[in-house]
C-alpha cells in the first residue's frame, strides 16, 4: 500500500549542524497488516513514521501511496491525504488541555466540514466502543494514562482512516494496559485497518498480532521480518 524508494531526510540542510536522519530507505508497507518499526532512539524510526504518515516530506526519494507519488506534494495536499488516510496516536497522547475528551476526539474532523450532530454521535459511538463513554465530558487533563490513550485512539479513528499510526504506544503504560492496547490493535486489524507502530518494547514486537517488524539503525534499514 505504501512504498518508499531511496528515501532520505535531512534537518538543518545547508547549515553546519546538517543532519541526515534517514539515509536511503526502501520499504513497502502492506495493507491490512500490523507493522512495527524497531530501533534505538535516534535510529530514525520516528522520522520514518512521519514520512509514511504524510506528516513531512522527504528531502529526496519517492513515497508512493497506492499508485500516487506523494513525495512532491505541497503541505496543503499532503494534509488532505493525511487526514482522510491516516489516524495518529502519539507517544504523549497530545490531547488538548482544558477541553472535554469528546471535543478532543472531534478536532480532526473540524476542517472537513462535517455536520456537528453526526460528528458528535460518531465520537460518542467510538468512545463507547473503547469503554470510555462515561469520560466523554471530563476534561482531558483529568484522565488516567490508559484513558488518555484510548481518547487518543478514538481521535485517530474519527475520520475513519485506513491506516492507524502509533508512536511508542506502550512507552507510558504498565504491562496490563499495554496488553489492553494490543487487544485494541487486534480489533483494528480485524476491522481491516492497517496499523503502523514504532516501538522498542519486546512485548509489542513479539506479539502474534504483529505481522512485520522493521529494524532501523542510524537511519538505515537493518532487518525486515
Amino acid at each position: 500500500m505504501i512504498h518508499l524508494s531511496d528515501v532520505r531526510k535531512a534537518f538543518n540542510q545547508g547549515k553546519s549542524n546538517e543532519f541526515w536522519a534517514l539515509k536511503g530507505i526502501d520499504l513497502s508497507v502492506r495493507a491490512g497488516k500490523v507493522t512495527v518499526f524497531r530501533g534505538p532512539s535516534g535510529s530514525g524510526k520516528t522520522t520514518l513514521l512521519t514520512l509514511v504518515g504524510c506528516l513531512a516530506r522527504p528531502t529526496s526519494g519517492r513515497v508512493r501511496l497506492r499508485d500516487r507519488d506523494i513525495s512532491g506534494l505541497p503541505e496543503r495536499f499532503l494534509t488532505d491525504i493525511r487526514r482522510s488516510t491516516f489516524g495518529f496516536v502519539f507517544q504523549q497522547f497530545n490531547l488538548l488541555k482544558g477541553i472535554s475528551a469528546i471535543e478532543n476526539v472531534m478536532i480532526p474532523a473540524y476542517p472537513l466540514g462535517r455536520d456537528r450532530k453526526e460528528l458528535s454521535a460518531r465520537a460518542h459511538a467510538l468512545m463507547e466502543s473503547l469503554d470510555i463513554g462515561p469520560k466523554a465530558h471530563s476534561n482531558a487533563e483529568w484522565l488516567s494514562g490508559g484513558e488518555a490513550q484510548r481518547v487518543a485512539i478514538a481521535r485517530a479513528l474519527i475520520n475513519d482512516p485506513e491506516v492507524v499510526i502509533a508512536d511508542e504506544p506502550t512507552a507510558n503504560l504498565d504491562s496490563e494496559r499495554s496488553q489492553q492496547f494490543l487487544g485494541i490493535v487486534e480489533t483494528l486489524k480485524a476491522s481491516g485497518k492497517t496499523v503502523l507502530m514504532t516501538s522498542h518494547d519486546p512485548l509489542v514486537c513479539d506479539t502474534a498480532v504483529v505481522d512485520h517488524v522493521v529494524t532501523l539503525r542510524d537511519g538505515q534499514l537493518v532487518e525486515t521480518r
Partner: protein
Amino acid sequence: MSVWLHKQRNLLDFTLSSLSRRRGKTLGMMAVYTAIVFVLASVMLFAHAIRQEAAVVLAKSPEVLVQRMVAGRHDLIPARHLDAIKAIRGVQSAEGRLWGYLFDPAAVANYTLMVPTNPRIEPGMVVIGDGVVRVRSADPGDLMSFRAHDGTLVQFKVDKAIGRDSALVSADLFLVSEDDFRRLFGIPAGLFTDLAISVRNPREVAKIAEKIDAALPDTRIILRDEILRTYESVFDWREGMLLVLLAGSILAFAIFSWEKASGLSAEERREIGILKAVGWETGDVIRLKMQEGLVVSLSAFLIGYLLAYLHVFHFGAGLFEPVLKGWAVLYPKYRLTPFVDELQVATLFFFTVFPYTIATVVPIWRAAIVDPDTVMR
C-alpha cells in the same frame, strides 16, 4: 456549500472554546483594546457632537452678515445701509443687530451681550445664560448692576435663565433690551453693531453678497456657510491633532498586540502542533487565529464604543473638556446631544481593528507554519 458552512461553524466553535480556555490572556488583551477604543471613540464622539451643536446653533443665524469696516477694523454700521440692502432683489429681510462683550469685575468673566428682537426684553430686565447663573449665583428676581460707559450705574433685574439645551453657545449670554444696551455703551440710535440679512433663495446668497459688496464698498460680508466651514475645519483640526497625539498610543497598542501574538506560550505552540498533526492545514490554523483576533477586536470595539458613548453623552466627557472645548472662563456645563455618525464609526473601526490585524498577521503565520511532525520529535 453546506460543507463549507459546517466547517466555518466548527472552526468558530473551536475559536470560542479556545478563547475561553485562555481566559486570563483574552481578558487582558480585551481590556487594553477596549481602553484604546474608548479613548479614541470619546475624542471623536465629543468633537463631533460639539461640531454638530455649533452647526445647530448656526443654522438659526442669518445667512448674510454685513459689517462696516473703518481702517481695517470693525465699526458700527449706520441704519441707512439697511435701505440700500433692502432695495436689492432677493433680500427677504434685513435688520440691525446690537451685540458686544461686557466684562464683569465681580465674576472676572466676559459676558456676551445681545439684544434679541423676538421676543423683546423689557427695559431693565435681563435674561442670562447658564454660566452667568453659576458665577453670579443669580436667581430670577435678583438685581445686577454695571457701570455704563459714562460711569453711571445701570441696574438689571434677572428675568429668567436660559436652559441648558444648547449651553455650549449660550452659557455666557446676557440678553438685554435695546435701550439698555445703547445706554450701557453710549451708542446713539441709528447705529448698529452689524446687519443681519436673510435671503429668499439660498442659491442666490453668493449673488446677493456680491451686490451688497458693490453697493456698500465700506463693508465686509460674512456668509453663514463660511462660518460653518471655518468651524468644521477648526474642530477637525483639533480632533486630528488629538488623534495624532493618540497615534502614539495606537502604535504602542500595535506593538503590544504583536508582542502578544508572537509571544505564544509553549502550551499554545504545542496546541498548534497537535492541530496540525491531527489533520489541520496551515490555512485552517491561520483562519482559527485570525478568528480569535476578530472576536477579540470586535467585542472590544463594541464595548469600548459603548463606554465612550456613555462617557461623552451621560457623564459630560470629563476627560477631554479642557482640550476640546476651548478657553472660556464661563465653562459650559451641559449635556451634549447624542449623535453617532457612520463615517466616524467607520474611521474609528479602521483606526483600531486595522492596526491590530496588521500587527498580528505575521506572528500568526509564524505560529501556524509549525511543522506537523514537531509533536513527534
